């Protein structure tokens, strides 16, 4: 009960404080210097958040249903509600105003402009680019093919090297088998480590490794591998956590060791999903490898950034065609493979 109240108050606190802040910005029209005063603005936002939380509590106290309450109310309480039209409720108006305000603020922040879109100079420039791209320079094809092969192998090796490590991690990061005074801390530490690793984009890892081992496919491969280990280990361990407990009990009751239990009761249950995830990961890695090439990870991406930098659009067009074809083919192939593995 308490828990739901807190969630609802936090939600209302954020949404209502947001409205207050928008009003303040519109009314006072702060200078850039004022906008950059983080500590003052943050404390203002914090105070408004607390104030709005109190408003939410007061409203709930007087039986006025706020948006947060509507969202976080336990289902069994919603079940007894009478049907009321959306616009006759407080929370309906709250939701509507917050969403519309957010949309308008978003348009202003992204400097959305029909004028720029229809600017003839800019439009002509885009047309030149399109003309180049749609008339690819096929003399670059051999080089592009060579580079995309490098990219495909980068992705392949990154995936292949990630598999055994992620495989081992997947059991160490699964809550259902990591019980006990030693195992549980290991689980917690590994989980946290994997989450942190995964939250750093492969692009950032590529920048780190291009400094560490130098620009080229090796840096790209390392970046993809690190990211793949974290992602695969997470996906794998979720499979381990959802296995049927029956065979585990069955194998343990015969006097098997924990290692034997994992090998004979869990692995047979997760092996097919593992393969499926891995094929998909390779597919993702090929696409990522292209992007990673842009920051010095080697392969087709590096080639792309070279020609793009010199505005050589016909060459860029050729590279884009090669990437599109390979990505499409791999996407299809991996979909068929995964379907067959079900």
């Amino acid at each position: 009960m308490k828990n739901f109240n807190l969630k609802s108050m936090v939600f209302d606190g954020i949404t209502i404080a947001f409205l207050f802040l928008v009003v303040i910005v519109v009314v006072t029209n702060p200078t850039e210097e004022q906008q950059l005063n983080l500590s003052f603005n943050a404390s203002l936002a914090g105070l408004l958040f607390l104030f709005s939380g109190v408003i939410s509590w007061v409203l709930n106290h007087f039986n006025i249903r706020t948006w947060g309450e509507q969202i976080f109310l336990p289902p069994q309480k919603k079940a007894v509600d009478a049907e009321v039209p959306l616009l006759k409720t407080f929370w309906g108006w709250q939701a509507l105003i917050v969403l519309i305000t957010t949309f308008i603020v978003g348009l202003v922040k992204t400097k959305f402009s029909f004028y720029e879109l229809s600017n003839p100079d800019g439009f002509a420039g885009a047309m030149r680019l399109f003309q180049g791209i749609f008339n690819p320079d096929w003399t670059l094809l051999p080089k592009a093919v060579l580079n995309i092969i490098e990219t495909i192998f980068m992705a392949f090796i990154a995936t292949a090297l990630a598999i055994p490590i992620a495989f081992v991690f997947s059991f160490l990061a699964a809550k259902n088998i990591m019980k006990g005074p030693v195992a549980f801390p290991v689980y917690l530490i590994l989980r946290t480590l994997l989450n942190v690793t995964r939250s750093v984009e492969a692009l950032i890892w590529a920048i780190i490794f291009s400094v560490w081992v130098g620009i080229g496919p090796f840096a790209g491969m390392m970046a993809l591998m690190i990211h793949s280990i974290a992602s695969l280990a997470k996906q794998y361990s979720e499979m381990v956590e959802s296995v049927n407990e029956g065979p585990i009990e069955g194998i343990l009751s015969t006097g098997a060791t924990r290692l034997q239990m994992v090998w004979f009761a869990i692995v047979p249950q997760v092996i097919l999903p593992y393969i499926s995830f891995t094929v998909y990961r390779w597919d993702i890695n090929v696409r990522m490898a292209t992007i990673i090439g842009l920051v010095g990870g080697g392969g087709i991406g590096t080639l792309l950034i070279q020609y793009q930098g010199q505005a050589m659009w016909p060459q860029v067009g050729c590279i884009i065609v090669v990437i599109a074809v390979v990505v499409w083919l791999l996407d299809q192939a991996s979909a068929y493979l995964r379907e067959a593995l079900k």
Partner: protein
Amino acid sequence: MSQTILSVKNLKKTYENGTHALKGVSFDVKKGEFLVIIGLSGSGKSTLLRCINRLHDPTSGEILFYDQDIAKAKGDEVREIRKKIGMIFQHFNLVPRYSVLKNVLMGRLGTMTSVASLLGIFNQKDKEKALDYLKLVGIREKAGLRADNLSGGQQQRVAIARALTQGPDLLLADEPVASLDPATCHVVMDYLKKVNQELGITVICNLHFLSLVRQYATRVIALKGGEIVFQGSPSEISEAWFEKIYGEGAKEVHIN
């Protein structure tokens, strides 16, 4: 009087969520007995069996297996005990993707080195033993099939063969027929009886149906709310006892 194989003394089990599943249970089991434990769902029957082979850790009390207290055994000791105590489950707990034979061979894991078992190297003697036990439960010809292709009754017989392959002195059966149809029920119970009488393996079996109890048990224990409310021979369970165990107004159902 024959030897006491298992002696449970004042066994208590409290789960982490505060449920008192067992509130001080004491009983002895003689070698060769077919002991049946009855009681409602939640009366502590499954917990009791799982404490005996230490799939669950008892909170307090003693479990003497051949005069050795196993209630507080740890690590390798627990595995040594489990090798001598086979178990079959309501949902069979086979590994679905493995063949019947491989499932039965799982019973040998406790005696193998980790390396040999992980590589899947089972010796010829073990294989012959496994096939013999499959023959004993009448499904020798299914050895090469995948376990999940078998019917429920057949899967339970594979589970019995797996437990026998361990070479146990004691067999725990947790509601072995609860997810089977009435006809198959008797087939499985008959094999348990055969195991008990021909191989001399002591059986402790949780059951729901009183009619099965009368047919198979040599002795009965009734649990209610984590305590023993009846101990004796199956013929002694009268109408009055039945109501006491299962609650007022309960009607006995017969399955045949």
